[in-house]
């Protein structure tokens, strides 16, 4: 018996937490938003989401198996999340071949070229989205009517109003009309569904409140202070909070582990940065929507934040009584 005993350093127990548990937790949190997208966009949302997941998973598998000659880790769920988030960030009538290019850019360039999960600097799904936005500006900004199955260009006032009737979250669509912004990528339709996802992830301790709350509070306060001087609807903080990809970005994209800071203080700085950049781009930038660029910009600053913002050390910061 004795020579069979395992000898290893402490600790001898583990929490049982795994990468896959966290990733599948995020997937569960994405379910409400997915259901709303099915309701609003119908079959198109389903086809795009499934296709996007397949493209991402296949890209990751092929790169790991045939280029890196490693055991593929697609089962950890991270490529599935990238696939869903990429689909959530495109219009529901995007041709599948464009989506495939986006998936290859997201996983191939955004994730695997840096060394795979955990080593990437930018959020892969956002990188894929921005890649498509720059490469295919027309297709990426033509928004079909929600509630219709077939892709149709342009929206009329009637359909937006129609939309409002059965979707209380449609305020964002109204605001989008004011801004001339996108009226909806697949996954950003319902603030309620996204917030449900946030509550689930907080409850399961997959993420902490620091990033989403700091982004939303910053956007709210920043636009509110502008609204005080210039109360035009374009500055309405409520509309800003509910419109575009802000909630989707703040809850699911900015909180990506690998590309956000490690310490809580770092997360707050990162969140405030995203909020400020988002509002600046929305109000004064060339693009109507700024969340994607804001997150990518702060992704790039994350290593710097990690270097300078340390956690509270024992015995250094806390005051003694």
């Amino acid at each position, binding site marked *: *018996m*004795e020579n069979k*005993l*395992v*000898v*290893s*350093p*402490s*600790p*001898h*127990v*583990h*929490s049982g*937490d*795994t*990468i896959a*548990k*966290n990733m599948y937790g995020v997937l569960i949190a994405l379910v409400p938003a997915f259901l709303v997208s099915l309701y609003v966009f119908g079959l198109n949302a389903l086809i795009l989401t499934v296709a996007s997941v397949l493209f991402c998973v296949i890209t990751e598998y092929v790169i790991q198996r045939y280029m890196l000659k490693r055991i593929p*880790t697609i089962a950890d769920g991270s490529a599935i999340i990238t696939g869903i988030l990429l689909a959530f960030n495109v219009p529901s009538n995007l041709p599948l071949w464009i989506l495939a290019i986006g998936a290859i850019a997201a996983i191939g360039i955004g994730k695997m070229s840096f*060394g*795979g*999960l*955990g*080593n990437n600097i930018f959020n892969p799904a956002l990188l894929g989205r921005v890649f498509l936005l720059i490469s295919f500006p027309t297709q990426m900004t033509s928004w079909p009517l929600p509630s219709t199955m077939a892709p149709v260009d342009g929206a009329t006032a009637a359909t937006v109003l129609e939309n409002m009737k059965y979707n209380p979250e449609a305020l964002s669509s109204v605001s989008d009309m004011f801004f001339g912004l996108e009226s909806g990528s697949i996954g950003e339709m319902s603030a309620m569904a996204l917030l449900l996802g946030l509550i689930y992830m907080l409850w399961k301790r997959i993420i*902490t409140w620091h990033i989403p709350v700091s982004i939303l509070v910053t956007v709210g306060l920043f636009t509110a202070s502008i609204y005080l001087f210039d109360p035009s609807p374009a500055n309405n903080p409520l509309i800003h909070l509910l419109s575009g990809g802000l909630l989707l970005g703040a809850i699911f994209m900015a909180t990506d*582990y*690998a*590309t*956000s*800071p*490690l*310490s*809580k203080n770092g*997360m707050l700085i990162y969140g405030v940065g995203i909020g400020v950049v988002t509002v600046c781009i929305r109000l004064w930038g060339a693009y109507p929507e700024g969340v994607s660029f804001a997150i990518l910009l702060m992704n790039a600053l994350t290593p710097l934040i*990690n270097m300078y913002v*340390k*956690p*509270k*050390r*024992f*015995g*250094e*910061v*806390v005051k*003694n*009584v």
Partner: protein
Amino acid sequence: MLKTFRIGGIHPKENKLSAGKSIESIPIPSEVIVPLAQHIGAPCQPVVKRGDPVKVGTLLGKSVGFVSANIHSPVSGKVKKIDKAYDSSGYKRDCVFINVENDEWDESIDTTAALVRDCSLTSKEIIDKIFAAGIVGMGGATFPTHVKLTPPPGTKAEVLIINGVECEPYLTADHTLMMEKTEEILVGIEILMKAVNVNRAVIGIENNKRDAIDKFKQFAKSYPTIEVQSLKVQYPQGGEKQLIDAVLRRQVPSGALPISVGAVVQNVGTAFAVYEAVQKNKPLVERVVTVTGKHVANPCNVLSRIGVPLTDLIDYAGGLPETTGKVVSGGPMMGKAIARIDIPVTKGTSGVLIIPTLEARRKLMKDCIKCGKCVNICPMGLNPTTLMTLTEYEVWEKAEKEKITDCIECGSCSYTCPSDRPLLDYIRLGKGKVMGIMRARKN
């Protein structure tokens, strides 16, 4: 709001399988092996030789140097030999082998159960008695107690904190002792207060031991200078710095001793040993050990003499299960995995934990996903994943700046990591290296 420490912390599954089981004395075997190094510091010099008759309490090894502790015979009989034998370190070390005959105690020892409450000794006399009795920290660290009770010149203790936290999962030795020896512990605390010359003591007990809190609160009514403080359950609250923060809201600065914030911390087991040493003249020859594990037939708390092989304790608890993969001396978070189970019980053996094969091996390490969980649970406010990387690449200067030497090796980071990264293994290695570099620079 229950008190607790303010930085980091985790909540491992408690698994206190032996909770509520009373202390059972286990039979003395025909031979015991008493290591001469059972404490932090210099090993003892043997003062007996082959063939010498010994009684329970006869001095076997004399302390050499200030940081060291005497070792007494835990049994009566004849010294068989002084030879090397394996201990929990995995190395062969000097031990005294004794053939057991009868159970005769040294005449000076009061073996009755009667409570002796009054103590008229001075601080110095108490510390001398504690030194003579070979008492060390019973929580597992085995730091000689008389050293801790002798504050460096220029410092003054204000409060004595008694550690009844037992935050390690599985272990219940302190809990059981608190339930069965409540009064003795309280008298021990009074003696310790006298030794360090303070008039306030606080016992910190985690809220998962309600019965012990209630019992101490009830008995402490007749000990007006002793407070009982219930604490929120959180690991590693039994860490000295964490406990001081939880009880006093004071944080010991990096590299400093608890006395720098006016605190002296002692374990409940140590308080009991001090009571026995000072009031009963009884040296440290036995201790309570939790024998436990998920597949152990009868998890229990045993009173064992020092030098009894762990094999006997495991047999008493129902034998080594078929499924055994790992045996740990101590608790699952900070205990030591041992290579063989015939090693003896020593002063620091707080538990014997038997881990099934399924849980004995670590999982394959994956890449860090930078989730930041280790950073947010580190009770010292360190950045474990960065410290691991710095150690991997041997960037010692930076590791020193990142306070790698502050690590208390509680294991919370490795426990938490979803990528199964052996964070503490690396940090421990880096900490040793950096401490070596710092020492070399001083000289």
